[in-house]
């Protein structure tokens, strides 16, 4: 036990002595929790619309004023030439062009009026399709209103919508719980792995290897400081989200901690395994970067897993962040219980065991 405590002391001293590292460990998580939710919004807002008005009637005026009033749409340009609007779309200042046909107002009473054409820039597919839907809804709403005003055959709202768990569809609330895993990956995965490879590259690891300290003791003493820091950072992150964004978990805090501990164990075991196979810091940086990109982009943090092709969806089952993201989001927003999430917890627990065994087995005391 004694060598273990001494080793632990050494690690803590080394971490605290490195002012760059300590500052990074404080500033980076704070920055992620404070700034990233402001930036990481993929909900479609601020869709810039140009209206090509060939009708010039009160109806088209009404449509434009509704577009102006919409919280999602911004009216950038009103013109009577399609080419002018098209130029704006190509340069990127306009996302969607609405062309109101001649005689729209007159044809309103006819059963088959000429169609309103909507042209969207679909380079960003999400913005193109959801933006188009917003435009259609806004105009359809205007037309219903106009028809009702004139007493024409009425169309009523036949459908109501209720958004559970996040009534205002606030995108930040969707992202914040998931962003916490970025901190775990960086603090509990990246840093210990870099630390061990550094000892390898400088050669100080040899000095440890020739001592009677067992490899488990050595690795544990490397990991425990980062585990403790990880948990402290999680608590800080939860307090920040509560104070700044007013978001408190709907479910049990203990379920969140349990999930977080399992994930921290998993990710540190995972990066240690990679560290065992890397000789230089340059190498491990590239490999870790590769995995982080895959974790960020494929485990449902940003883009939904359900929209991936079948083979890619199966692939996500071997990504540990997939489970913790699901746990954090469900508990935070929906108040899901431990029993309902047993699949996620079982998977995460198995990964934790697997990677830590792998890390211990692949660590060689002989070079």
């Amino acid at each position, binding site marked *: 036990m004694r060598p273990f405590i001494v080793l632990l002391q050494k690690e803590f001293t080394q971490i605290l002595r490195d002012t760059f590292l300590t500052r990074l460990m404080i500033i980076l998580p704070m920055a992620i929790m404070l700034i990233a939710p402001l930036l990481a919004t993929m909900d479609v807002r601020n869709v810039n619309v140009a209206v090509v008005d060939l009708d010039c009637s009160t109806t088209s005026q009404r449509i434009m004023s509704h577009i102006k009033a919409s919280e999602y749409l911004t009216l950038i340009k009103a013109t009577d030439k399609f080419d002018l609007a098209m130029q704006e779309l190509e340069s990127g200042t306009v996302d969607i062009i609405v062309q109101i046909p001649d005689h729209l107002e007159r044809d309103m009473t006819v059963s088959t009026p000429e169609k309103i054409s*909507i042209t969207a820039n679909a380079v960003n597919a999400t913005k193109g399709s959801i933006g188009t839907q917003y435009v259609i809804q806004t105009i359809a709403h205007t037309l219903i209103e106009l028809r009702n005003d004139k007493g024409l055959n009425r169309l009523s709202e036949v459908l*109501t919508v209720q958004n559970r768990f996040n009534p205002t569809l606030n995108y930040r609330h969707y992202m914040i719980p998931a962003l916490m895993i970025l901190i775990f990956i960086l603090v509990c995965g990246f840093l210990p792995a870099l630390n061990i490879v550094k000892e390898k590259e400088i050669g100080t690891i040899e000095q440890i290897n020739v001592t009677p300290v067992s490899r488990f003791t050595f690795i544990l003493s490397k990991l425990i400081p980062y585990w403790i820091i990880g948990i402290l950072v999680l608590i800080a992150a939860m307090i920040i989200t509560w104070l700044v964004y007013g978001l408190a978990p709907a479910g049990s805090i203990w379920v969140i901690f349990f999930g977080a501990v399992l994930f921290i164990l998993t990710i540190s075991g995972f990066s240690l395994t990679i560290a065992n196979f890397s000789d230089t*810091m340059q190498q491990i940086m*590239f490999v870790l970067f590769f995995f982080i*990109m895959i974790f960020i982009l494929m485990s449902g943090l940003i883009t939904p897993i359900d929209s991936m092709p079948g083979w890619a969806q199966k692939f996500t089952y071997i990504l540990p962040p997939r489970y913790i993201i699901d746990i954090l989001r469900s508990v935070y927003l929906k108040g899901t219980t431990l029993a309902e999430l047993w699949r996620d917890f079982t998977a995460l627990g198995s990964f934790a065991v697997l990677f830590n065994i792998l890390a211990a087995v692949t660590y060689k005391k002989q070079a």
Partner: protein
Amino acid sequence: MNNNLLSLIKKESLHILRDKRTMLIVMLIPVLLMIIFGFAISTEVNNINIAVVASERTDGVKDAVSRIAHNDYFTFCGYIDQDRIDEYLRSGKVGTVIVFASDFDRRMEQIYAGIPSKPIIQLIVDGSNVNTASASIAYLQEILLGRASQQAMFETRMLFNPQMKSAYNFVPGTMGLIFILVCAIMTSVSIVREKEVGTMEVLLVSPVRPAKIVFAKMVPYFVISCVVLIMILLLAYFMLHVPISGGVWGIFTLSLLYLLLSLSLGLLVSTVAKTQTAALLISGMVMMIPILLLSGMLFPIENMPKFFEVLSNIVPARWYIDAIRKMMIQGSPLIAVWKESVILLGMTVAFFGLSLIKFNDKLE
């Protein structure tokens, strides 16, 4: 004099070539990332799980359900009881529950006949997943209301990307991220390593000018990045079928400029960082997060608070990704992106100049 430079470049190239594993990693990872993101990632929402609550399964309800079940966006998971709605949504079994009124058929006929009616369909949506929720509502309105809504009045066109492929948006973004990280990490680490090990001193006391030492370090990495660039362009065109409609030379020229910029950025990092860890952390972590968040690669810049919208102007990747998107997908020529090109050129000159000044300072 030129002999000096050549032998330095040769030395650097040998250093890099000797480390086969690193070489392999550097070449392979961008390609793998490109393939994975090109094929697997999609921001478009589909495969939404749907459950239905209907006290009476009338013909109208069955008809509506079969239309939903046959739609590519939805997977129908069966009928459930009213009191289990919450449980299904909370456990994530379904994303949306549709509740039909008990006299759905009769009221629907009234609506078609133009008689006002109270709402007869209720959508209960899991709002925790924001984009899926909004897409689900929009699609369902279209499917369920068809005739009753005004959808038939519109004619829509999706320009530049009629098949709505997310790869069109991701490929330029991934290029912008990969190049700046590969070049910045490689150059900064290779210079700082010489500092840390102490061999930099040896080089500096030699009669070779410092500028040449730095230049010789950059050349081999520039060549490697060019190879990566060519591989990525080939991949994007032949495997991901991203149109390179604005002319391959324009894209190539701008990318070369961007590579130079990234190399200079790496150089600048190396003058600031004292240890390899610091260099890696700066070029890897501290730079990666702003690029991911502020470059417009994933998250639209126009959604951000004003302050960050302004701040994003200093992220080089933002300008590059913007320009590449225009050239690759909208088919604009190089001339059309002159503004972005000039900004990138200015940044390159600034980074390079700044790092040369800092480098020379250290020597005195």
